[in-house]
């Protein structure tokens, strides 16, 4: 009832769109905090060889599992390995797999969805059947075969996980593009003489950024969890290398024991990452939408 009538009363923001977007992001406290957390986490993991107080795989069988104390901040596991050091090293694998899978699946999914939605008809039918095919594939079985055949390097894990995740983004982007395509501003662009590529790149994609960013954040989180499932089943990263998922899986047996502290480190790390990615995604979504007023 009260939309669309703001005549000249809003003071005109005069900065160029890029700076306005940045300003909008900076005003969103949770997103900024989350970004800082994420950057710190990533930096700490990247610097693990120098930061970690102990080598990640140094065992101290005589020490055994000890709860957090002054020399082992997060305690040690049953082999006497320092938890903090292991988390930092594991984070390198978990974070890179999560971010890489998020980026890759989003890129593929967005491209497939945009093309299917804009081209329509046969192209749409073909691409969507392929998408459906991927959706009904028994993911774990495929993973197992692929990893057996291609080796268990992180790169293969990323490729396989991205191959299992892109469909969700594709479906959402396609649906969004299908409705955007019918909007008059797309027709106006065609009437002006814009090519199909220009319409997709300049008009459609910027308008789906919101859903894409949210889905990308979900994909990052899902990939970190999925990697742990894989590792649990024995298809993920192999010892002595470890990941947050592997550590969590290893510690599962200690839930109601004095060694429950083993769950906290990797658990909190995963939680922090997933939450941060979500908050950053949320902030980005709002930044890309000029309709959300700068606060």
């Amino acid at each position, binding site marked *: 009832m009260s939309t669309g009538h703001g005549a000249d009363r*809003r003071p005109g923001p005069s900065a160029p769109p890029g700076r306005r977007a940045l300003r909008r992001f900076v005003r969103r406290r949770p997103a900024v905090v989350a970004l800082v957390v994420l950057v710190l986490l990533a930096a700490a993991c990247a610097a693990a060889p120098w930061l970690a107080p102990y080598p990640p795989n140094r065992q101290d069988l005589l020490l055994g599992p000890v709860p957090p104390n002054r020399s082992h901040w997060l305690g040690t596991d049953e082999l006497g390995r320092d938890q903090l050091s292991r988390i930092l090293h594991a984070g390198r694998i978990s974070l890179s797999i999560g971010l890489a899978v998020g980026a890759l699946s989003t890129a593929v999914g967005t491209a497939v969805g945009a093309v299917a939605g804009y081209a329509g008809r046969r192209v749409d039918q073909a691409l969507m059947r392929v998408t459906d095919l991927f959706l009904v594939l028994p993911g774990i079985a495929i993973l197992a075969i692929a990893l057996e055949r291609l080796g268990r390097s992180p790169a293969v894990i990323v490729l396989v996980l991205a191959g299992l995740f892109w469909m969700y983004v594709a479906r959402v982007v396609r649906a969004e593009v299908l409705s955007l395509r019918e909007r008059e501003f797309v027709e106006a662009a065609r009437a002006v003489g814009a090519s199909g590529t220009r319409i997709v790149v300049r008009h459609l994609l910027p308008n789906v950024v919101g859903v894409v960013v949210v889905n990308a954040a979900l994909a990052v989180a899902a990939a970190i969890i999925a990697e742990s499932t894989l590792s649990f089943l024995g298809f993920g990263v192999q010892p002595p290398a470890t990941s947050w998922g592997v550590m969590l899986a290893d510690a599962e047996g200690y839930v109601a024991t004095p060694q429950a502290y083993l769950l906290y480190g990797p658990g909190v790390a995963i939680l922090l990452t997933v939450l941060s990615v979500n908050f950053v995604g949320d902030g980005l979504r709002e930044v890309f939408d000029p309709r959300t007023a700068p606060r």
Partner: protein
Amino acid sequence: MNGPAAAASPVLRVEGLSVVLPGPHGPVRVLDGVDLRLDAGRTLGLVGESGSGKTTTALAVMGLLPPSARRTGAVTLGGVALHTADERTMTGVRGRRIAMVFQGSLGALNPVMRVGDQIAEAITVHRRIGAAELRDRVHELLSDVGIPDPWRRADQYPHELSGGMRQRVSIAMAVANDPEVLIADEATTALDVTVQAQVLDVLRRIQERRATAILLVTHDLGVVAGLADRVAVMYAGRIVEEGPVDALFARPGHPYTAALLAALVRLDRPVPPGTRPVAIPGSPPRLDEVPPGCAFHPRCPLALLPEPCGRAVPEAQVATPARRVACHRGAEVLSGRLDPLPVEQRAPVAATVVSTARGVGPASGPPLLEVEGLVTVFPVRGGWRRRVVGRVEAVAGVDLALAPGEALGVVGESGCGKTTLARSVLRLVEPTSGSVRIHGVDVLRAERATLRRLRRRAQIVFQDPEASLDPRMTVAAIVAEPLRIHRLWDADAPQRVRDLIGMVGLDAGHLDRYPHELSGGQQQRVAIARALATGPELLVLDEPVTALDPSVRAGVLNLLADLRAELGLGYLLIAHDLAVVARTCDRVAVMYLGRVVETGPVAEVFSTPQHPYTQALCSAVPVPDPAVERTRRRILLEGDVPSPLDPPSGCRFRTRCRRADERCATEVPVPTDRGGGHLVACHHPGPEAGWGS
């Protein structure tokens, strides 16, 4: 409209009604001290633009405001105080003593329930009634609202009925329990004029028969003129003027009412040459940003600033016993001492502008646009293999010609193919056959490169300005895009963008805005600037002012007239509103079911229509003059537009035409010249007087 219950006793009284709704930036006062009085068996027109609070008033009376709303003031229905009533009491009142008809007739009906059952439900929720009696009552109601064959219709689902039929069903549901008050909230806004005329007729008959009091909520002063006894005008949550319909139309007391009335174009009188519609500057305020003092003062030609208009909210003054005007200068205006429309606004445009705008005829030079035998067919797909199961001939053989600098209006009701025609001409939809030439260049056979060059010369402005602008682009980027696409972006281009923005009446301060930061009128101006960026000679205007508020329309139409005069543009203007075409165009083409039935100079076609359909169309448009509107003879069309999937043979209008004979069923009428370029495609053309009433 004097119903049988002529005794003036108020059945509904609203006193000091204020409503505050929570908004994102704090509470918003959407209604401020609204007083209304509706007498038994009478009709009160509640007129206002979007955001004026007219719908909120209706909902507040019904007790249907959202729970977060805070309401103060009194609502009394026949002695019962509704503002203190609890929800149980209100449930008993709603639908039994006050009923409401909404705008969206499809959304108001349950799609999975037969219409007969829905009407029956409206009755049974309020009283016990036997099955046989109930069935009879439903059929009686259906025939009361003019639905033929009620026995069959009662067993149908909403999607099987046309829009007009569904709205009649809504009315039948509303009057099922003989309510004392019927609230019609924009009940005819979504309908075509000929269907609107039918539905208004139903309301009129219902009132005569049942002495129902009607609160007619609308933005259309023409609708009010024919139906209402009294009129209340709302602006920014307040009643600015209230009075008997004749007096208010004859002598408005508030500058806003005066401006709204002056902005209307009457079809029954030709537009005097050289006159311009009055444009009210600015646009209606958002309710969270209502100006202090009189809310209308920033747009008012009479405002005394700063005192009193900019400071004090004007009280409703009782001017004459029957009239109230909430304006600091209302008394002066009503007494005739002050003219609410200052001279410069009514002055005719400069003679040069007039001569170019109205004087360019088809004779000057080769045609800008030639359309011959244009056919656009849409396949209808069905079944799981999406095979073509039918075809809709949206445009079924249209011939048109447009000279440089000429404005041709295309009018018709929804589904007549006028929008498809507009898009086909620019090849935004692919026509099936025929030819379109712009300056002799064949559009339909043009290669990619040729088409791109043509796009520079022919542009389009769409109906919904908000939808036609990319929400992620700034105004500057939107206007610059055509220049970039056509590689016209050079050192002078930024200046060209600024010039374009100035040309459409905006300023450089708007360049960094996003579309959602602009009002509807401003958005449409941006769309026009974009269309002008490549320097076209032809503009296709697809319902350019339909989505705008009435007080904003005149400004955009004036702009279009000025641009045409200055730039020598040719316009192909698509509109369902005949008044827009009467005001803007030199010639008009009337379409029915994909074909042009009549074409000729605007003044001639609208004053002496020769085709029976044009006659019905013209007669269905409400005239904003109560005296004329009440007495004039109306040609009501029977039934609905036939399905375009299976159009009638021969003349497509014959199924609803009173002059139809066997010849009309077998032979497609060819357009014949009735003199002066006035072409009519009818076997029995002739002026209206020639056939029975």
